[in-house]
């Protein structure tokens, strides 16, 4: 296979623009084509990942302009992980949305929905594989705008309001990022991450204030976009009012790619030593820790199922930021592990919420009685994902939280263990009542007399839910195998 990661971007971009034309001609063909495109990209991502594992990271200059001038695309350990994760989950979500969307959005706008769906995929893939800072900014904007459009695709008034809120705050965030990129270019004269990093390593001492300002601007900008705790205000509205496949994308992938971009900047451009010595690290630790606590508190009082899941995302992002703020090698492994597991968990939970809405039309947490008997497979998957959220053993969430707790001890912040346990208990406090309702609250008959029925949702909606739930179990039991790979990421970052 030739080394052209550019196809990864074009492969989603071209079909996305063909969608509205196709929708005009054959409306039913849009969803299968999207599944096909996502499947193709997933295979391509796996091949690139394999090539990276065999031959090491590889770089390509777009249009044969050599790196300091042209745009460079890189498949490194972290981007290989992310492209496989993004395309894999996208394949499942596309499969799910082919039937789920019939009840959630207006069928006339289905072609436009898939434009945004694939555009968001393209931009996320571009964002994780590009090595050019300004190119990264462009992809950030495309992700932002297409994510807003995914929220508004329902067209009712709450989602319009949520989308506008998201758009305004995301634009403020990208204003900060653009300003910081300008300062970086001003100091280094390069837009390629590696070259800018090399210059910065030599001349960092000359501009101490400017580098502090730059790092803070990057943290604020990416913090708004990835819902770091006090800047998370747009997230619950946007994730709760979007159609459920969109919520799954936004919650499990879109907020994560910004974290990846931030840490590519920190570790490639600013460099590990500089990052370890900077105060930005403590900012991330404090904000991540408060996100773990307050996100869970806010989730506890929500009665809308998807809103509760959205606030839970704020809390879980806190774990990732805490791990990356601690910045010991194993803490970064824990952060990436949690990033993977959380992507699977949130996809599973939001797809379950979508399936429950599809079959019963219920959105309120208090009205989910008997779901465990009428939709046993969906409720079972929901239970697995919720256990993983809490961090019970044998699920993926346990391993990442355990690693994080051990590392916070190692990095001499032992009190974070109490925080991790407390946050886990709070997670239990708002997930277990839902599960209790699924199985043990009687609607009309006593528990013993109830029998299991088959889920009345299509197979294409059931399959993604089961696969994600199985993935959580696999990560929880055989997760040790992923350590080696994640350590490669860390070595690549920290060298």
């Amino acid at each position, binding site marked *: 296979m030739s080394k052209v990661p550019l196809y990864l971007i074009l492969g989603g971009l071209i079909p996305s623009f063909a969608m509205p034309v196709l929708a005009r001609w054959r409306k039913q063909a849009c969803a299968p084509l999207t599944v096909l495109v996502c499947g193709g990209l997933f295979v391509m991502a796996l091949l690139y990942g394999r090539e990276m594992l065999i031959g090491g990271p590889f770089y390509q200059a777009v249009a044969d302009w050599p790196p300091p001038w042209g745009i460079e695309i890189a498949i490194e350990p972290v981007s290989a992980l992310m492209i496989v994760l993004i395309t894999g989950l996208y394949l499942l979500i596309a499969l799910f949305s082919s039937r789920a969307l019939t009840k959630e959005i207006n069928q006339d706008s289905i072609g436009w929905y898939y434009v945004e769906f694939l555009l968001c995929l393209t931009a996320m893939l571009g964002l994780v594989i590009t090595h050019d800072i300004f190119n990264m900014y462009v992809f950030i904007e495309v992700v*932002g*705008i297409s994510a807003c459009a995914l929220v*508004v695709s329902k067209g009712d008034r709450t989602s*319009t*309001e949520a989308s*506008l809120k998201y758009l305004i705050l995301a634009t403020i965030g990208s*204003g900060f990022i653009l300003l910081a990129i300008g300062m970086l*270019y001003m100091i280094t004269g390069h837009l390629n991450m590696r070259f800018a990093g090399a210059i910065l390593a030599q001349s960092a001492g000359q501009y101490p204030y400017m580098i502090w300002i730059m790092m803070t601007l990057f943290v604020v900008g990416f913090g708004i976009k990835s819902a770091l705790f006090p800047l998370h205000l747009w997230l619950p509205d946007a994730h709760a009012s979007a159609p459920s496949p969109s919520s799954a994308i936004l919650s499990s992938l879109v907020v994560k790619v910004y974290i990846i971009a931030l840490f590519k900047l920190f570790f490639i451009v600013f460099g590990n030593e500089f990052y370890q010595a900077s105060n930005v690290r403590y900012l991330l630790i404090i904000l991540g820790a408060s996100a773990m606590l307050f996100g869970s508190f806010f989730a506890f009082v929500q009665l809308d199922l998807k809103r509760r899941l959205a606030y839970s995302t704020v809390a879980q992002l806190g774990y990732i930021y805490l791990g990356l703020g601690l910045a010991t090698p194993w803490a970064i492994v824990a952060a990436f592990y949690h990033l993977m597991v959380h992507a699977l968990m949130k996809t599973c939970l939001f797809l379950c919420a979508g399936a429950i809405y599809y079959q019963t039309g219920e959105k309120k947490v208090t009205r989910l009685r008997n779901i465990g008997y009428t939709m046993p497979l969906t409720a079972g998957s929901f239970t697995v994902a919720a256990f993983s959220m809490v961090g019970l053993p044998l699920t993926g969430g346990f391993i990442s939280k355990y690693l994080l707790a051990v590392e916070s001890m190692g990095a001499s912040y032992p009190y974070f263990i109490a925080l991790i346990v407390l946050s886990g208990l709070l997670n239990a406090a708002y997930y277990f009542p839902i599960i209790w309702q699924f199985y043990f609250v009687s609607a009309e008959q006593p528990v013993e007399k109830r029998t299991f029925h088959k889920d009345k949702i299509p197979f294409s909606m059931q399959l993604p839910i089961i696969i994600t739930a199985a993935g959580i179990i696999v990560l929880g039991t055989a997760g040790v195998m992923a350590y080696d790979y994640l350590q490669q990421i860390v070595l690549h970052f920290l060298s």
Partner: protein
Amino acid sequence: MNWEAIIANYPYLVSVIIFGIGIIIVLTQSNLLKKVIGLNIMTSAVFLFYIAFGNIEGGVAPILDPAAPAELYINPLPSGLILTGIVVGFSTSAFALALIVKMFSHYGTINAPDFMKMR
């Protein structure tokens, strides 16, 4: 405080002040159209910042004339980047305005505090 350095680099100071004004407009105005105007002021301030650091005093436009090569050219790259930035800002505000039109058709007003009452 090194005042001379600040005065010599006044374009940066001005652009950061305008950036702040833009953010304050976005955060304090309740009218949605004014919020979008604030966003545009904010992004324009960043564009000004780019143009300012791309300029070199005494430089000429970077067009190579083999007959009479100039001694000093300004850096064309920031201006080129800003072209992309302007397109992005344009599409963001177009999308925001489209959403505002939709909000108006749903609520009959574009004043943010009124939405809270009408929930």
